[in-house]
C-alpha cells in the first residue's frame, strides 16, 4: 500500500477534565473516501479539525503529504463580505496566484451568486456551498468535510458530491463526517465509527451495517 496522504497518530483532545477525543489514529490514502460516523458529541468534528490543522491536539501528531481542504461543520466565512470577496480573500491567503480567477471558477462551479450581496444574507444552502467552495481553494488533494450536506436539499447535495467525487477521481482522498447512514453506504470505502471520543469500529463500509444499530440505537 502507498504512503497515506494524511496520517494522524494517536491524536487526542482534552478540554480540562473532559476528553473530547481519546488517542486516535486516522490514515487517508489516495483515491479513497472515509466516513466518520457517530452520534452528536462522538468526537468526529474534533478529529477532522485536528487532521485539518484547525485545532491543536492535546497529544499526537498529524503528517500531511498533500494539500488539505477543510469544510467545517458551521459555515466559516465573513458575513459582511460577498461570496466572491470571501473566495478572493482566502485565495490570497492560500497564495493562489490568480485569486480573482479562482473565485470566478468556484462561483460558477457551485452556482453561487456573483453579486456583491453580503454572504450573511445568502440562504443556508448557499452559505454551506460557499463553505465547501472555500475548502477547494488552492486545489487540495485531500478534503475533510464535516457534515457537508446536512443543510442542503437533494439537488444541492448531489451537486456538492459531484465536485467531491471529481476530486477523489483525480487521486485525492476524502474524509467526511456524517450522521446520514445512506451517505455512508453510497459514498464511503471505509468507515470509522466514533462513540464518546473513542473509535469503536474501523473497517470497510460493508462492515458498518453490523455496528450501525449499536451506534445509533
Amino acid at each position, binding site marked *: 500500500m502507498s504512503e497515506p496522504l494524511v496520517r494522524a497518530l494517536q491524536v487526542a483532545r482534552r*478540554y480540562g477534565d473532559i476528553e473530547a477525543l481519546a488517542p486516535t489514529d486516522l490514515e487517508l490514502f489516495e483515491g479513497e473516501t472515509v466516513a466518520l460516523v457517530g452520534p452528536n458529541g462522538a468526537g468526529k468534528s474534533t478529529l477532522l479539525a485536528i487532521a485539518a*490543522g484547525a485545532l491543536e491536539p492535546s497529544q499526537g501528531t498529524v503528517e500531511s503529504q498533500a494539500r488539505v481542504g477543510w469544510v467545517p461543520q458551521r459555515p*466559516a466565512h465573513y458575513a459582511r463580505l460577498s461570496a466572491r470577496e470571501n473566495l478572493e480573500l*482566502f485565495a490570497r491567503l492560500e497564495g493562489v496566484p490568480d485569486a480573482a480567477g479562482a473565485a470566478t471558477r468556484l462561483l460558477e462551479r457551485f452556482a453561487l451568486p456573483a453579486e456583491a450581496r*453580503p454572504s450573511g444574507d445568502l440562504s443556508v444552502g448557499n452559505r454551506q456551498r460557499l463553505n465547501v467552495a472555500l475548502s477547494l481553494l488552492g486545489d487540495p488533494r485531500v478534503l475533510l468535510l464535516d457534515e457537508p450536506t446536512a443543510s442542503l436539499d437533494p439537488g444541492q447535495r448531489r451537486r456538492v458530491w459531484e465536485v467531491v467525487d471529481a476530486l477523489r477521481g483525480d487521486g485525492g482522498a476524502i474524509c467526511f463526517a456524517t450522521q446520514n447512514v445512506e451517505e455512508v453506504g453510497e459514498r464511503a470505502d471505509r468507515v470509522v465509527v466514533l462513540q464518546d471520543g473513542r473509535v469503536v469500529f474501523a473497517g470497510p463500509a460493508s462492515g458498518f451495517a453490523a455496528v450501525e444499530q449499536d451506534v445509533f440505537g
Partner: protein
Amino acid sequence: MRAVSIVLRKDLRVLGRSPLLLGALLAYPIVIALLVGLIAGYASSKPRVAFVDEDHLPQVVSVGGRRFHLQAVIDDVAKQVTLVRMSPKDAARELSQGKVVATITVPRGFLGNLETMASSPSLVLRTGSGGLAPRVTQQMQSLVYQLNQKLQAGYIAANLRFVDLILHGGPGSFLGRHFDLLGLDGTQRELAKLPPSKRVAVIRHFVEVARVGLAQTGTALRATANPITLTQPKTHGRTWVLSAQVQAYGIALTVTFLALLLAAGAAAAEKDEGTIGRLRRGLVSFGQIVWAKSALAAVVGLGLGAAIAIVFGLVVEIGGVNGGEPWARLPLLFVGVTLVGGVVGAVGVLLGALAREARTASLLAVLVVLPVVFLGLVPRGAFALAYWVSLFLPFAHAVTWFGAALYDTSPWRTLAVETLWLVGIGLVFGLLARGALRRLAA
C-alpha cells in the same frame, strides 16, 4: 506581513460595511472635537464680570497732587474680563444665576479714602462657583496689585510734601485743617539768633541731623514701598494653555476607547464567524492576527485622532482661543495616535480573545476602558498604587505623548521615554493576546 495586510484590508472593508458603526466613528471625533473646542474656548474666553460703582467714580481722580485716569485703569481690566456696569441688585441677581462670573463693587466712600489717604480704600469682589471664578479672583488680585503700584507713587509724592513742609516750612493742610509750619530751616534760623549755650548746641545738632536724615526720605519711602518686585523675563515657545490639556485628554480618551472596542470586537468576531479555524490552518498565525487587529486599531486611531485635531483646530481658530492649534505639530501627533492605537489594539485583542464572543467583548471593552482612563488620571501623590498600575497601561503614556507632541518646546526626550513605555506595553499585551487567541481557537 502579506497575511497581516490582507486581514487588515478585510477588517477595514468589513468596518466600511457596518453603516451604524461607521456613522458613529465619523460622528464621534467631530462631536468630541467640538466639545473639546467649546471647553477650550470657554476656558480661555473673557469672563463676564459685573462692575458696580456705588461711589460714582469720576473719569479722573487726584491723589497726592497727581491725576489718575480711572477709566484707563478700567479699560486695562477689560482686556482680561468683560466688565459690565450694573446696579448692585442686578449684579447680585446675575451672579446667583451664573450670568456673570463675579461682581466687583466700588463701595461708597472709596474715592474719599483714596483722595485723603486717611485709610486704605477697599474694592469688594464676589465670585460665583463656576470653573472660571479662581481665574477672575487672580485677575482682580493682579488688578489691585497694579493699581496699588500706580497709586503708591502719588502717595509717596504726598508724603514727601509733608516731609518738605517739615524741612522747609510753609503753609499746609491735612484732613481739611490748614496750618503754617516753621520747618527745620526756620528752626535753624531761629536757633542762630539765640545766645550760644550747651542746650542750644544740642538742639542745633538735632536739627542738622534731622535735615540730613529727612533729605533721604524720598529714596527710603520708594524702597520700602516696593521691598520686592516681581519681574518675569519673556520666554520663547508655546504656552501650556488649558486647551492643550483638554485636547491631549480628548484625543487619548477617544483613541483609547474606540481602539479598544474595535480591536476587541474584531478579534472576537473571528470566533463568532468561525473563521479563526480557517485562518490558523497555516494561513495566518496567531501573532499575525494580533498584528492585523492592532493595525486596524492604529489605522482607525489615526483617522480619529487626525479628525479630532483638525476639527478642534478649526474650532479654536474660529474662536480665537489663546494658544491656538499648533498646526506644525500635527504630523508628530499623528505618529502618536497611530502608536497609541496599535498598543491599545493589542489590549483590545486580549480582551476580545478572553471574551470569546463579539458582544461580550464590546461590553468588556467598555467596562475596562473607564478604569484604564481613570487610573491614568490619578496623580502620583493622590494614590500611589493607582499611579503605579497606570504606568503599565497605555492611557497615561498616551496623554503625556500627545501633550508633549502638541505643546512642549523640546518634546523629544519625553516622546522617546513614552514611546519606549508604549512599545513595551504593546509587546507585553501582544504576547498575552497571542496566547489568548490560541485558547480562543481551541
